[in-house]
C-alpha cells in the first residue's frame, strides 16, 4: 500500500471518523450475520435447541452437526456405492460442480475467443457490445428470455425457438427444462450467455496490453499466428486469465436467480444457493437453511484466501 506523505500524518482518531460509518454498516450487515448464521446452523429448525435434539432414534445422526448431515447427505441415495455416485451428480452439489466446470470454461473460452477475434475486425466495438449486452440485464429478465427460447409446446405447435428449429429438421421436440440431464446444461447456457461478455472485456483489455513489438518479432521469425498465440499471448495474459477464472468460479458458486426463475430447482436442477432458499423460506427449516449457507461460504473461502493473497502481491509490486 502506498505510504502516506509524512506531512499528511494525522492523529489516530481522524481515520476512524472517515471509516466509521462504512465499517459499522459492514460489521452489522456482513460480519455479524455471518457469525450468527454459523451459530444458527448448529441449532434446530426453530433455533430453540441444539441441532442434536432434532436427531431421531435409530437414524443416522451427526450430533450437533446434524443439520450438516442433512445438508450434505439428504440428497444422496445411500443404497450402495453406485446409487450414491449417481444421485450425487443430480444433487445440488453435483450440479454446482457441473456449473463450475461448464460455465467457467464456457464463458472464459467464448470470452477469450471473442476478445482475440474481434480485435481483428473493423466492427470490433459493435461485436463486443453485443456480447456484453446481457450483463446489463437482470437474471430474472434473462430467465424469461431463455425460458421462451426453450419453450416446449404440447402437440405439434412449437413457439420456442429451439424446438421450432428441431421440428423443422424433423426432430422430436425436447422439454429442455424438464428433461435430465439436458436441463442443467440448458440453464448453464444461460449463465454463459450472461457472463461471457464480462470475461471478454477483461481479457480483451489484457490482450491489448501485450506489446505489439513482441508479437511482430515472433511473426518475422516465421512463427505462425497459432504459435504466437499459444507461446506469447497466452503466457502474457495468464495472470488475468487466473483472475477471471477465480472470479467466475465465485460467481458460479453463488448462482441463484437463473435456477430459481427457470426451474425453481425442480427436475434435479437444484444448486446450493437455491437450496438454501428452499430450506429456509419454503420448508421453514432455519437450521438446515443456514447449514447450507455455511457450506456455501466454506466453498467460497479458498477464493477469499486467493483474492487476499493476490491483493497482497499486487500491493508489493506497487
Amino acid at each position: 500500500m502506498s505510504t502516506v506523505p509524512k506531512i499528511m500524518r494525522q492523529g489516530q482518531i481522524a481515520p476512524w471518523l472517515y471509516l466509521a460509518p462504512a465499517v459499522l454498516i459492514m460489521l452489522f450487515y456482513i460480519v455479524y450475520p455471518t457469525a450468527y448464521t454459523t451459530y444458527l446452523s448448529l441449532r434446530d429448525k426453530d433455533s430453540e435447541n441444539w441441532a442434536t435434539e432434532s436427531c431421531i432414534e435409530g437414524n443416522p445422526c451427526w450430533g450437533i452437526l446434524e443439520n450438516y448431515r442433512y445438508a450434505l447427505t439428504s440428497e444422496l441415495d445411500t443404497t450402495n456405492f453406485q446409487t450414491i455416485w449417481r444421485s450425487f451428480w443430480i444433487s445440488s452439489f453435483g450440479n454446482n460442480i457441473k456449473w463450475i466446470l461448464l460455465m467457467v470454461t464456457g464463458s472464459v473460452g467464448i470470452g477469450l475467443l471473442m476478445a482475440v477475434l474481434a480485435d481483428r475486425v473493423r466492427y470490433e466495438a459493435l461485436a463486443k457490445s453485443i456480447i456484453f449486452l446481457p450483463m446489463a440485464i437482470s437474471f430474472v429478465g434473462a430467465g424469461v428470455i431463455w425460458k421462451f427460447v426453450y419453450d416446449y409446446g404440447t402437440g405439434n405447435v412449437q413457439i420456442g425457438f429451439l424446438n421450432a428449429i428441431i421440428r423443422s429438421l424433423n426432430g422430436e421436440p425436447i422439454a429442455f427444462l424438464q428433461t435430465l440431464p439436458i436441463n442443467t446444461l440448458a440453464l448453464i447456457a444461460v449463465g454463459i450467455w450472461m457472463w461471457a461478455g464480462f470475461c471478454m472485456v477483461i481479457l480483451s483489455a489484457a490482450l491489448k496490453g501485450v506489446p505489439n513489438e513482441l508479437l511482430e518479432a515472433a511473426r518475422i521469425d516465421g512463427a505462425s499466428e497459432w504459435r504466437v498465440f499459444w507461446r506469447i499471448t497466452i503466457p502474457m495474459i495468464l495472470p488475468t486469465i487466473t483472475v477471471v477464472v477465480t472470479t467466475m468460479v465465485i460467481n458460479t458458486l453463488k448462482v441463484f436467480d437463473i435456477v430459481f426463475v427457470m426451474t425453481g430447482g425442480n427436475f434435479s436442477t437444484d444448486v446450493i444457493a437455491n437450496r438454501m432458499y428452499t430450506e429456509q423460506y419454503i420448508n421453514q427449516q432455519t437450521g438446515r437453511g443456514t447449514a447450507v449457507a455455511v457450506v456455501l461460504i466454506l466453498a467460497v473461502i479458498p477464493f477469499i484466501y486467493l483474492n487476499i493473497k493476490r491483493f497482497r502481491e499486487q500491493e508489493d509490486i506497487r
Partner: protein
Amino acid sequence: MNTEKLRNFLGSVPLHIVIIGFCVIWLIPALGLMVTSFRPVQDANETGWWTAFSEKPGAAEYTQYCGKCHGEDGSEIAEADLGDTEYIESFRRSLQIAATFNREYNGEIHLAEDDRPDDQQLADILAHLRRQTGLDERPQFTITNYEDAIVGYRGTTNYEADCEAGTQSVDLTCDFAQDLTNPRGMALAFRNSLFVAIPATILPLILAAFAAYAFSWMDFKGRIWFFAILVGLQVVPLQMTLVPISRIYFQLGIGGTFLGVWLFHTGFGLPYAIYLIRNFMGSLPRELFESAYLDGASHWTAFLRLALPLSMPALASLAIFQFLWVWNDLLVALIFLTGRNPVMTYQINNLVQSLGGGWHLLTASAFLSMLLPLIVFFAFQRYFVRGLLAGSVKG
C-alpha cells in the same frame, strides 16, 4: 495486387463468420423477447415470433387440404359453410376440427388419414378461416401488451377491450392514471425499483468515498490488514446474512420497508465500492496532495477539493455498477421487500411462477424492466467497462 486482396478477403471470411455467428446467437434470444412483446395475445402464444414478419400462414394450407371440396372462400358446401362467421366461431380450437376428420358423410370418411394437415397446419388453417371471416382482425403488432403490463391487467383479452366492455376485474378502475398505481402493475413496480435503486446507489457511494480516502491518504495502524479483510468480504455470499438480518428487521419492524433494503444493499455494496474507489484515489499523484498540505490544507479540504473531484470517473463507474446491481437484484427484494413493495424483478418472477403461458405479458414486462438498465448501459458503457477493469472481483 488484386488477387492478393481477394486472398486476404477470403482468408478472413471464417473470422467474420465466427464473430457474426456469435453475435447472432447472442442477439436472437433477446430479439425474440422484444418482437413477442409487441405481438397480439393470440399470435404471441400460438405462433413463433419469427413468423411475425412473414405472410400469415394458413391460406396456402387451406387451398391445399380443404379448398377442393369446401371451395376457395369456404362456402361451397352449404351444410358446413366455412365462410360463415358464426359457424367458424363455434370452432374455438383446431382440435375440434381435427375431431371431424373421422366422421363419415354420405358414406365417405371426411378426410382420409393421408390427406390430413398436421396439428400446426390445421391451427394455421383455422387462424386463416378466422381472419377470412372477420373474426380475428388484429394488427401485426400492438402496444396493448405494454398497457396491460403497466396497469397489471391479467385477463384474457386486453385492458382497453375489457374497459370498453365494462368487464374489467375489480382491481382496475379503467381510469388509466389511477390504474397506474395498481399493486400488480409494472408502473408501480418501476417506481418502487427506482425508489430502491437510487438511494441504494448514493448511500454506499458516499460512505465508500470517505473510507477510501482514509485507506488512501491517511495513516493508521493495521491499514493493510483492514483492507485485506475488505477484499475478503467482497465475496461473502448474500445467503450467509439473510436469516439474521430478517430477524433483526422483524424485531425493529422494518421488514418490507425501503429503508431496510437501502441499508442492506449499502452493506453489501460497500466492500467492493471501497476497494474500487481506493484503487483509483490511491493512484492519484502524490505531489498534488503534498503541495496541498504545504499550502495548509486539512484532510477535510483535501478530501472535498482534491480527492473527490479527481475520483469522479471511479465514482461514476461505481454508481453505474451499484445501480445495475440493485435494479437487477431479485433475492434481496424477495426477502426484505416482499409483496408489500414489489419491484420489477419481483413482479416478473411472480408472473413466471403463476402465469405459465402468458408470453405476451411476460415478455412486455421483462422488456420494461430491461429498458432502464439498457439505456444506462449504452449511455455509460465506457464507465461500466472501466469499473469492471478496475476491480474485477465482485460478481
